[in-house]
């Protein structure tokens, strides 16, 4: 049980950390100053969420483990983030759509997690939900404006949809450590939020005049939650962990 809870915390933390790190790559490169700041704010929100989950995971572990060793000293195989969080940002359309899919997922996930029987997870979810509610609102507005914008922006959103859709199935595919926590009402049964997620996505895509009819038989990428990642995660970790690996315990 302890080990499942530890893994579940890492999964939640890794999702936020890797997504946050990816989004932070836009800092200084946003399409305009206002959006540069907006997406950097969101990146920081997510990294803050990951800290809360890592701190809890470290407390469960109970040894020398800290939030920093969990973030900086694990290898790709030990990370449990969804694949959608690690794929490259692409253009602004891809980044926005990826964030929209992910924020919608977090929004429904945290709504359930905030009534978890685990008080600490419930508290983190409640706090994070306020941030995620805004991420969802902000990314939805952008999906609508680009989908229903110019011919160019509409085309780019359609391409982003093609590219990103295969990464959405993993969100609702429960791993063993999640399943074993469901009966104690600790973890969220992700199959229960799939319909809410699909309904919200369909409504926004419709408003954005984007096509929603996705091929039900499309191959869904999965594996991230169990530690099987794309080649992209290694590059993220190389950049993110370099300092701690090269200069262990350095402070400044």
């Amino acid at each position: 049980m302890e080990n499942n809870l530890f893994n579940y915390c890492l999964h939640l933390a890794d999702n936020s950390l890797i997504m946050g790190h990816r989004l932070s790559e836009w800092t200084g490169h946003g399409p305009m100053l206002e959006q540069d700041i907006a997406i950097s704010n969101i990146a920081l929100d997510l990294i803050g969420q990951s800290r809360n989950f890592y701190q809890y995971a470290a407390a469960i572990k109970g040894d020398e483990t800290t939030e920093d060793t969990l973030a900086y000293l694990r290898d790709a195989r030990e990370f449990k983030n969804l694949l959608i969080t690690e794929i490259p940002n692409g253009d602004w359309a891809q980044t926005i759509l990826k964030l929209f899919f992910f924020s919608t997922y977090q929004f429904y996930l945290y709504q359930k997690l905030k009534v978890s029987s685990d008080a600490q997870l419930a508290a983190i979810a409640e706090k994070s939900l306020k941030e995620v509610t805004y991420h969802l609102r902000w990314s939805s507005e952008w999906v609508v404006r680009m989908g229903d914008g110019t011919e160019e922006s509409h085309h780019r959103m359609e391409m982003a949809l093609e590219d990103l859709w295969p990464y959405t199935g993993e969100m609702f595919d429960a791993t063993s450590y999640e399943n074993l926590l469901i009966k104690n009402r600790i973890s969220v049964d992700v199959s229960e939020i799939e319909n809410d997620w699909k309904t919200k996505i369909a409504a926004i895509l419709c408003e954005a005049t984007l096509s929603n009819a996705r091929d039900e038989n499309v191959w869904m990428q999965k594996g991230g939650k169990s530690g099987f990642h794309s080649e992209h995660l290694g590059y993220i970790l190389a950049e993110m962990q370099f300092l701690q690996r090269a200069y262990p315990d350095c402070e400044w």
Partner: protein
Amino acid sequence: MNQQEPLWEVFIRSKQGLDHKHAGSLHAADAQMAIENARDVYTRRMEGVSIWVVESKYIHSTNPDDAASLYEPANDKIYRHPTFYNLPEELKHM
């Protein structure tokens, strides 16, 4: 991109009961996005509890060249300040 998006003036109420004050300006495609941009740019350090935005082109202002005729005539009309009354001792904060 900024050349295509209009400029908006942002007003922030720093806490309940206070007036909205001009905080600055930014670019956005429409009012909703302007409010969200304002939230991200101007309230990230707990500066506000309410935001107004108005497209800059709708703000009309006096011409600085007219300052002499508009404002200076008030300089020597001190009788317009209510400072010539003797107030009772009990009245404070007037």
